[in-house]
């Protein structure tokens, strides 16, 4: 065994450059895999950490104003499984004005810095003083409406008097569910300040937050409350699962991309290892013959190569794991930043074992398979012939090039490109993976641009929204029909509905000129407004396992008095609630709730609409209760940033491919030293040698780019559709700028040439005499 060990060490040191390159390649793959797995295992890590630090409530019940008594609250607090409570919490939904913009918010009483249960995480500034005109804004409001410490928000009290409240701090509420677009942003203020503004406590909403002994027992606690017949005064409830899901939404997207690229990287690593190990064995087959002749057994030969690659893969995996762990906080940064906390994924033996198993396992399997092939070679033939003979027939492309009168170095290079088909295939696949990565990045980028330019594809088929408070629907419609620059509008209200088996979601009931809005219907058609037809988001369709043509019977949540059945006629890209919403005409929805009336109005503006004029018309004075919000950006920045990550990872794949081309070219050159020597002897000039070796690499690059572009596009389409379906968004049409192809082809060919340039110039400088002498 010591002989095998000595040979392992000798081989690793003799091929130092290749050993280092393989180790780096394995390390890159291991780092990517570590990043992806660590992100998966710690998706909720930052949230969980914060949740525990703040002793947050697992469940919040929101009560209708004045419909709950202290006795009810005591009964709920004493339910088994409830270990602590926030006590009664007060809030009031109203509108505020910030920089001239109106916004519906929930004003909530700040429970104190040292609250037992459900403390708020201060991100910036300080906590408000009692009875001072000061507020805290929740992070979501701060991020999405550019509110910062020092700003002033204006609240109009019940007497019509404006109160100016200073923003003194920004806080994070772990139970604020950003996922639910129906939830208004939170502002926290002292109870005294709220009472000054809205003295009548009967119109305040009440809520109650609980710590549960078993956080997973939310459903059973709700069931018990229902059985107490208390749910009739519970307006809604917030489950910590939903809040957690919304906080990790962005990182899930990052995780999917990282996982896809890790798979690419693993595949690339396997290819490079198989390719390199096979090549090494081919170039050492004479040595294997000699080793067998002096007594090495097949098993020892196997150990020799598996041992070599075990060392390289363990070294590479260890380096990659350390690098991956160091970079692990990065993918989670969108979460940690939004939570205003820090989180470093901890070291995990499970993670290390997984990475080792995948990376080192595949490396050693590949090495074992190739070594077995080498060990089975005939001794005499191995010693006499040396390297396994390449395919000896002339490649058809070389014959064609010859027929076309191409230079001889090009013809010979073409002939060499496929003289070892397996290696050519593996190297080509490796390059193809790199091309696919780049195409993925480019297609993703173009697709995002297309969606940004046409928000209708994202379900945003309007230019602006208007919300009303106390104005009636008919008055609002009258104002909007005369508003300057408004081409069309429709009103919308939301109803919380449920299916016969208790699954609840939101229903959009629309009324008005909906046909004048460019609704994007990915499947089927839009509904007829005076019928019981509906269109649904892809998420709802999948969730309820429905298809176009099916019917859906719904009641209002918590009621079963009125049932209405709709026929599903189309699918639209629903931007909220993971696509789990339904859209119907208001007329049919009023059969569920006869008081249903629009509170939000969607506007289609004329191309030259003067938005300042429109705002002045809709909000002529501070008493006006209509507020206008213009649609500016349909795609969140976090998704845009993904493009950078995708390009970076595409670059890494190309880097791995270049290393593979380099190693393949180097080994191929080593194997055909004799041929290079002969060709130089008969007059091949150094530049012609470089051209010959580069041609072989260039042709692989060319074929890879020609295959990689269509395959990459197909893959991008499937991946985006898969992602889109996962988020309930439906079919995505992939955009790709085909002019890029003309740039990509020369770039990838150049990359291949770059990979083979060093081995080629080494061959060009080769001493003919030394080669011939070694024969």
């Amino acid at each position: 065994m010591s002989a095998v060990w000595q040979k392992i060490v000798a081989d690793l040191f003799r091929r130092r450059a290749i050993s280092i390159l393989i180790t780096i390649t394995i390390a890159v793959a291991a780092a990517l895999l570590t990043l992806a797995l660590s992100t998966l295992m710690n998706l909720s890590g930052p949230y969980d950490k914060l949740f525990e630090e703040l002793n947050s409530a697992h469940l919040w019940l929101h009560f209708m104003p004045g419909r709950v008594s202290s006795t009810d609250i005591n009964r709920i607090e004493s339910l088994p499984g409830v270990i602590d409570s926030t006590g009664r919490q007060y809030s009031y939904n109203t509108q505020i004005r910030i920089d001239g913009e109106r916004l519906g918010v929930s004003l909530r009483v700040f429970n104190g810095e040292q609250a037992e249960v459900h403390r708020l995480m201060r991100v910036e500034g300080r906590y408000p003083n009692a009875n001072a005109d000061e507020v805290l804004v929740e992070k979501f409001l701060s991020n999405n409406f550019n509110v910062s410490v020092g700003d002033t928000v204006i609240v109009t009290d019940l007497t019509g008097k404006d109160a100016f409240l200073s923003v003194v701090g920004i806080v994070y509420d772990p139970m604020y569910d950003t996922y639910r677009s129906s939830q208004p942003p939170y502002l926290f203020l002292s109870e005294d300040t709220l009472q000054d503004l809205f003295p009548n406590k009967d119109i305040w909403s009440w809520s109650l937050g609980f710590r549960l002994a078993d956080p997973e027992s939310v459903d059973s606690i709700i069931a018990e409350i229902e059985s107490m017949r208390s749910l009739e005064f519970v307006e809604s409830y917030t489950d910590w699962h939903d809040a957690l899901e919304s906080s990790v939404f962005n990182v899930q997207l990052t995780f999917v991309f990282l996982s896809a690229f890790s798979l690419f990287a693993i595949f690339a690593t396997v290819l490079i290892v198989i390719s390199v190990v096979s090549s090494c064995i081919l170039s050492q087959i004479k040595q294997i013959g000699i080793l067998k002749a002096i007594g090495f057994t097949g098993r020892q030969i196997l150990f020799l190569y598996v041992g070599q690659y075990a060392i390289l893969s363990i070294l590479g995996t260890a380096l990659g794991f350390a690098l991956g762990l160091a970079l692990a906080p990065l993918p989670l940064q969108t979460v940690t930043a939004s939570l205003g906390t820090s989180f470093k994924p901890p070291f995990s033996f499970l993670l290390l074992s997984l990475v080792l198993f995948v990376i080192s396992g595949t490396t050693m399997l590949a090495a074992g398979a190739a070594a077995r092939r080498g060990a089975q070679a005939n001794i005499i033939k191995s010693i006499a012939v040396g390297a396994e003979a390449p395919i000896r027939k002339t490649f058809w492309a070389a014959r064609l090039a010859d027929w076309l009168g191409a230079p001889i170095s090009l013809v010979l290079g073409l002939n060499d490109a496929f003289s070892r088909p397996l290696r050519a295939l593996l190297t080509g696949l490796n390059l193809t993976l790199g091309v696919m990565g780049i195409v993925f990045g480019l297609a993703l980028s173009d697709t995002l641009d297309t969606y940004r330019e046409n928000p209708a594809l994202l379900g945003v088929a309007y230019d602006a929204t208007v919300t009303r408070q106390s104005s009636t629907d008919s008055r609002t419609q009258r104002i909007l029909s005369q508003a300057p620059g408004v081409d069309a509008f429709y009103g919308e209200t939301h109803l919380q509905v449920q299916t016969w088996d208790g699954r609840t979601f939101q229903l959009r009931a629309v009324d008005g000129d909906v046909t004048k809005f460019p609704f994007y219907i990915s499947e089927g058609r839009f509904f007829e407004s005076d019928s019981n037809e509906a269109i649904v988001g892809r998420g709802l369709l999948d969730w309820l396992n429905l298809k176009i043509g099916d019917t859906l019977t719904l009641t209002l949540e918590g009621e079963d008095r009125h049932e209405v059945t709709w026929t599903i006629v189309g699918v639209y890209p629903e931007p909220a609630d993971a696509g789990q919403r339904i859209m119907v005409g208001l007329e049919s929805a009023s059969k569920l709730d006869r008081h249903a009336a629009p509170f939000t109005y969607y506007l289609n503006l004329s191309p030259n609409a003067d938005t300042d004029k429109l705002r002045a018309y809709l909000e002529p004075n501070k008493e006006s209760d209509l507020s206008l919000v213009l649609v500016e950006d349909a795609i969140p920045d976090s998704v845009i940033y993904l493009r950078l990550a995708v390009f970076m990872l595409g670059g890494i794949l190309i880097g791995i491919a270049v290393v593979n081309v380099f190693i393949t070219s180097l080994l191929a050159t080593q194997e055909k030293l004799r041929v290079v020597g002969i060709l130089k002897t008969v007059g091949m000039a150094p530049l012609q040698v470089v051209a010959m070796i580069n041609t072989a690499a260039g042709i692989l690059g060319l074929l890879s780019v020609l295959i990689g572009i269509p395959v990459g596009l197909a893959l991008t389409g499937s991946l985006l559709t898969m992602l889109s379906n996962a988020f309930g968004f439906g079919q995505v049409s992939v955009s790709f700028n085909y002019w890029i192809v003309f740039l990509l082809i020369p770039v990838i060919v150049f990359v291949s040439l770059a990979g083979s340039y060093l081995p080629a110039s080494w061959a060009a400088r080769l001493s003919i005499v030394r080669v011939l002498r070694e024969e």
Partner: protein
Amino acid sequence: MTALVQARDLKKTYQTGSVHFEALRGVSLEVDQGDFVAIMGESGSGKSTLLHIAGGLDKPTSGSVMVADQRIDSMSETELALFRRAEIGFVFQFFNLVENLSVRANVELPAFLERGRKKEIRQRSTELLDRLAIANQADKHPWELSGGQQQRVAIARAFINNPTLLLADEPTGNLDSSSGDEVLEILQEFNRQGQTILMVTHAASAAAMAKYVLFIRDGLLVDKMHGGDEKAIAQRLLDLRSEP
């Protein structure tokens, strides 16, 4: 008349680690146009090194070499490649054919490197293949031929660009005696038509085909005699071995 090959005081030292090896220690040589010169000597005597330097495959450590009025010891790699392509034909002991090219492609290879006209190259290769009696093997690959046939292909390749000088390194060393004799007859025939040949050999029978024979020992030319008499050549070789 100016000699085709003029070597002056050629020295060649190889260094492997700390070990110096003097392959040539001051060889001067002249080969005239149309000569057929054989170089004989023991293994390691420097005969192949001398051939390689004369063919522009290697450069001397010191001394000068003129071949066909060109000073080749100071040429760049590219100039040497062009020189070899135009002026030199090589025939080796192990044939050194390119395995995955057909016989015809092997023969035509140096001509295509020279970017000659395809039609002319094809005509020339056909003539050579005919002359060497391997025309019927043109589309085969080297591994499908016998050793003698492979050496004929190598000879055809060496002559495709009408070289000024043919260098042969043990051309019969890997052949049976019958094939070896055929190869030597071919070389002699080309020489009779004016081809200058410089051949390295161990075999007295091969050296006897040359016009004259040079003996090399320990990197120095030590003797010269006319060819033709195989026994005298063999005896001189024996004598050289026994001399201190």
